[in-house]
């Protein structure tokens, strides 16, 4: 059974083009013209993936994205004509999984759709958790405690943290992290890593400007520092 994709865009020509190309690529497609309609369709149509335009009259894409995230883990790919870093960060912040700027090549979009639909394998193997004086991570229950306060991580942030902890003490290259968390077609999106690592640092580091857990390995990637044994 082919995956169901909900295309949310206020431009009819774009919806037409997307319907034609996605259908021809083997997906089922439904459309929504506004953020409000998208929220309704999310319940009624139960899509496997949402392609969401940011710039729409009424409820914008960002707000719609936040509402969707409240009750759903459906992968969301933002499609937008704006390509400033700030907008990208905002979209990822709002809970989007990926970000494609318009205009885009269809092959690129299809690759991203495939990657987003590919479900992350569960917590098989790897560490069960991590515990230090001010940080506790439990991978099975997906709970993170920082200085005894519960911290909420998005699925991508959580995957990123898990991958880093699984290789605790060793540098993990950018490409490997991107492919582990986003999928095999990724590798050059170091800006994604920057955004998500920054988020993670803000959430778990005592001083995000001088991280002690998630360290940057210049030219290579990132490393999760295991605390020195006392």
């Amino acid at each position, binding site marked *: 059974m082919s995956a169901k994709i909900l295309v949310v865009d206020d*431009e009819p*020509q*774009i919806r*037409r*083009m*997307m319907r*034609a*190309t996605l259908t*021809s*690529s083997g997906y089922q497609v439904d459309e929504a013209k506004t953020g409000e309609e998208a929220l309704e369709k999310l319940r009624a149509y139960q899509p496997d993936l949402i392609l969401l335009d940011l*710039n729409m009259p009424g409820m914008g894409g960002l707000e719609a994205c936040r509402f969707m995230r409240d009750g759903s883990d459906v992968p969301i790919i933002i499609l937008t*004509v704006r*390509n*400033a*870093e*700030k907008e990208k960060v905002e979209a990822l912040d709002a809970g989007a999984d990926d970000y494609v700027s*318009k*205009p*885009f*090549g*269809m*092959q690129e*979009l299809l690759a991203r759709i495939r990657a987003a639909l590919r479900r992350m394998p569960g917590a098989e193997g790897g560490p069960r958790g991590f515990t230090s004086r001010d940080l506790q991570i439990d991978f099975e229950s997906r709970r993170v405690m920082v200085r005894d306060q519960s911290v909420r991580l998005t699925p991508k942030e959580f995957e990123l943290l898990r991958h880093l902890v699984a290789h605790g003490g060793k540098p993990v290259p*950018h490409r490997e992290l991107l492919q582990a968390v986003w999928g095999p077609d990724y590798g*050059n999106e*170091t*800006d994604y890593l*920057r955004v998500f690592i920054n988020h993670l640092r803000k959430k778990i580091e005592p001083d995000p*400007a001088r991280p002690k857990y998630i360290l*940057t390995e*210049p*030219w290579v990637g990132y490393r999760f520092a295991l605390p020195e044994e006392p």
Partner: protein
Amino acid sequence: MNRLWQTAIRIVVSLALVGAIVFVYKSILPANSVTVALTLVLAILWIAARWGYAESIVASVVGMLGLDYFFIPPVGQLTISDPENWAALAAFLVTAVTASELSVRARRREAESIARRQEVERLYALGQTLLLSSNVHTAARDIVNSIIRTFEISGAVLFNQVTGEFYRSEGHTKISDDQLRRVAETGEPVTDSGLQTSIVPIRLGGQTTGSLGFVGSTLSSAARNALAHLVAIGIERARTIEETNQAEAARQSEVLKATLLDALAHDLKTPLTSIKGAVTHLLAKPREAEELELLTIANEEADRLNRLVVEVLEMARIEASKLHPDRARHHIADIIQATLKAQEEALQGRTIQLRLPDSLPAAEVDFEFIGQVLKQLLDNAINYSPPNAPLTISAHLEGERIVVTVADEGKGIPVDEQSKIFDKYYRGRAWREKVLGTGLGLSIAKGIVEAHGGKIWVTSAPGKGSMFSFAVPAVKSELVL
């Protein structure tokens, strides 16, 4: 005339007072000469305190004569027999005159301090008026009017040397334009006590900006100078406000332009998205050579149109000063690495030499923007040098700045073009036909670097390649001093 009459009347009254005292002690209340002398000194003090020096001197002399004639033996004569009485009379005169002088001086001090206080109050009132004007012309007119009103003088005139304009109070011509100009040029104040006019230069920060003339002035020179300074500040303030407003209006119109272009960019990109999506979808399927060629052209041109839209919009943002770098601590090495990764495809087959000192401090920059500058310099190096020529990227600390350089081994840039290549839409003569571009890339890079408070430049010799460099601030706390 009036004054003379007044003094004459006062002298008569003073004489009458002295006469009355002499008469009372002579005919009604006989008393000895000491009592009479003391009473006379009292009267003379009162006269001095009330009226002034002339009146009290006349009263002293007449009082002394009366004392001598009526009370000091031999009575009825102006001669004095006993030398002791000579001393007494002299003592009386000296006491009367000295006391008068002291009393007059005290009175003058008081009058002066009242005048000063009044001047300060008036300067304050004028200062308030000046603060309310926001435009140079109304400020000058307000100044002239309020000087006349607050200082109660008959006329005033202001010469603004910067604009070359004169502002006169109504119907007064005692001070000529030439006089005002001369004072503004020489910077020396001029006073004409006959015409009761004075002209002072207006100075601000050691520079003369005009002159101010008064007619019927009773102002002290200190007050005149304070007034001139106040006026200078008032005019400067009005000028600054006016200039700021103009600059703000110009910026506003750039902001409006950027907003319009923003909307336009959105409207252009939306159809481009449909075209690009449709064409790339068709391209992904097996095609005959002819179809493939035509679809490829459509795809490339959609990309080109998009690039143009993006660059024009970015340029408009820079011109509207709407480019706000989000500056944070970043390592230049990370930015270079990210840029190289993003350019992997275009850089294939190139040797890239990196020269980065380990000790390089972090830079205080917007990661994305500086990445964009680097990308532009790399693009240029790739486009304007032979396909296999090596590129060099280096960075070093220079003072408080980090200088990043991208060097190629291409043909170089003719000297006369080096200053123009950062201009909007300028494209090198030799390349206009060969390399597709908008001529905006380097001016955008320049705008970004300047928004960071840095600068960008090129050194190039024809035949020896080009070196593009930009300098951005290093994180201060990481500088080893």
